[in-house]
């Protein structure tokens, strides 16, 4: 696409209107910051960064954490879709195996034995949240993760669940036995 360039008038080609506009806007900001004490930090949160963190808006894509349902059960069923989709390979899931522990939720088949996210690798892309069929992982509001070692930056299942909190959603496994029973008796009813 070719953008048609507007021919500048002689007055504009002297750069003087641009300079005047520049002086106007910079001096306005200069005065409001220096004398009015108005800063971007005070507009978006109560103060300056390390003490007062920025209040992120709704829908912000920060660090991904695992969530629990309203009954306090682990929602993840260890399907490993997020592990496969993760572009920087930050997620590692250890499935329970055939003789592993059964899921927290009644009727759900399994839950991960271990679920690790390496926050040094994670790029906060949100693919894990998008691909999750269980609504078990969400990108949340944390944007400033720090640690003193690489090992510390690998968040395990316990930590992820603790940070993730509760996400009340559709509990599709809860009523599965009733639904299955209803289906079984379907032909007889008609």
């Amino acid at each position: 696409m070719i953008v048609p360039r507007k021919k500048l008038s002689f007055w504009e080609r002297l750069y003087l209107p641009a300079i005047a506009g520049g002086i106007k806007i910079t001096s306005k900001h200069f005065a409001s910051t220096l004398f009015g004490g108005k800063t971007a930090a005070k507009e978006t949160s109560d103060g300056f960064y390390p003490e007062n963190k920025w209040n992120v808006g709704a829908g912000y894509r920060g660090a991904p954490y695992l969530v629990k349902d309203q009954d306090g059960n682990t929602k993840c069923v260890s399907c490993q879709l997020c592990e496969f989709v993760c572009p920087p390979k930050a997620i590692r899931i250890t499935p329970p195996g055939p003789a592993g522990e059964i899921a927290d939720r009644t009727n759900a088949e399994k839950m991960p034995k271990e679920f690790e996210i390496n926050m040094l690798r994670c790029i906060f892309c949100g693919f894990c949240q998008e691909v999750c069929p269980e609504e078990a992982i969400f990108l949340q509001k944390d944007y400033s993760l720090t640690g003193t070692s690489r090992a510390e930056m690998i968040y395990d299942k316990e930590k992820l669940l603790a940070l993730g909190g509760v996400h009340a959603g559709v509990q599709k496994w809860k009523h599965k036995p009733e639904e299955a029973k209803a289906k079984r008796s379907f032909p007889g009813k008609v």
Partner: protein
Amino acid sequence: MDTTFLIFSAVKIVGVFAVLMTFVAYSVLAERKISAWIQDRVGPNRTSLPFVPKIPIIGPWLVSLGIFQPIADGLKLFMKEDFTPGHVRKVYFWIAPAVAMAPSIMTLAVIPFGSLMGAQKMLIADLNVGILYTFGIVSLAVYGIVLAGYAANSKYPFLGGIRSSAQMISYEIAMGLSVVPLFMLVGDDSFTGKLSKTWQDFLADTSGLNLSRIVAYQAEHGWFALPFLAKTQTGLSYMMWPFTFLAFVIFLVAVFAETNRLPFDLPESETELVGGYHTEYSSMRFGLFFMGEYAAMIAGCSMIVTLFLGGWTLPFGSLSDPASSLGMGIAHIGIFIGKMLALMGVMIWVRWMLPRFRYDQLMDLGWRRFIPVALANILITAIVLWAITSSK
């Protein structure tokens, strides 16, 4: 060579160098603070020395101004690893930062930064070819950058070096041509006859291109940029104002280009060339380029003050004459530094106000606007001066 001359010269050199380095450090702080205020931020406001916050009121205020930040910055530059990448041309890589730093310090040798302290003139080298020396030295500054670009042996520094050489050579021509009208005016030696006794003593043994003479002319007839700031109002300086003011504008813009400041910072242009010519440098060797840029700004501002803004004089009372007492000598140095700092403020402000020029616009402005205008300025000034003198 008498010993008093050597001793006083050494003292002046050390003094000027110390003041220059302090100003370099604090102009970096000023740059950061002013940019912060323009961009709705606060800038460095945490660094402090152990005991300072305990001083009531003044302590926290100084900390919030970031007064101690330059100490931390300097220390950081010295403590960082000085890394030499494997692919560079070593000898040139080592020389380049020094070559970039030296010319801006050397320029200050001929700047008259004050009148007299006792019997000593407040300038390091009282050259009768002051302005020619300045242009000679300023044009050496490009070598540091070109050498750095060549030595780094990688593409971005190379592009930065190429751009810089083209830019600095183009704008040097406009810069040199723009000051010719001033020396046409000052070169008329008859003006010294009207000066006071102290001025005539001060200007003894000087001739044509000495920078003190241009200060003397401006003290008497008004600043070349603002002729109403004069000791005695004359019709001539108002008649010449359009030409001297045009020269001032061209010189000012050329100084921006010579010091690689926005809107002409194409050699560095972070968004396209990573860091430009100093991409491969680290630690204090990078620091030398960084300090060199600010030292060049200070030298450039000093040149503007001397050539266009009346040097160390003010047209009030005896401030326009060379000092007769020590107090007046200090006042003159203060006036010079005040004017220089005001100009530094302008240079810093402009950086955060105007966007960068495109490369072809830069060359166009230099070769097709400023050089013809500067040449025409010389010609018309000459014709007007000829008309005035022949009508007398």
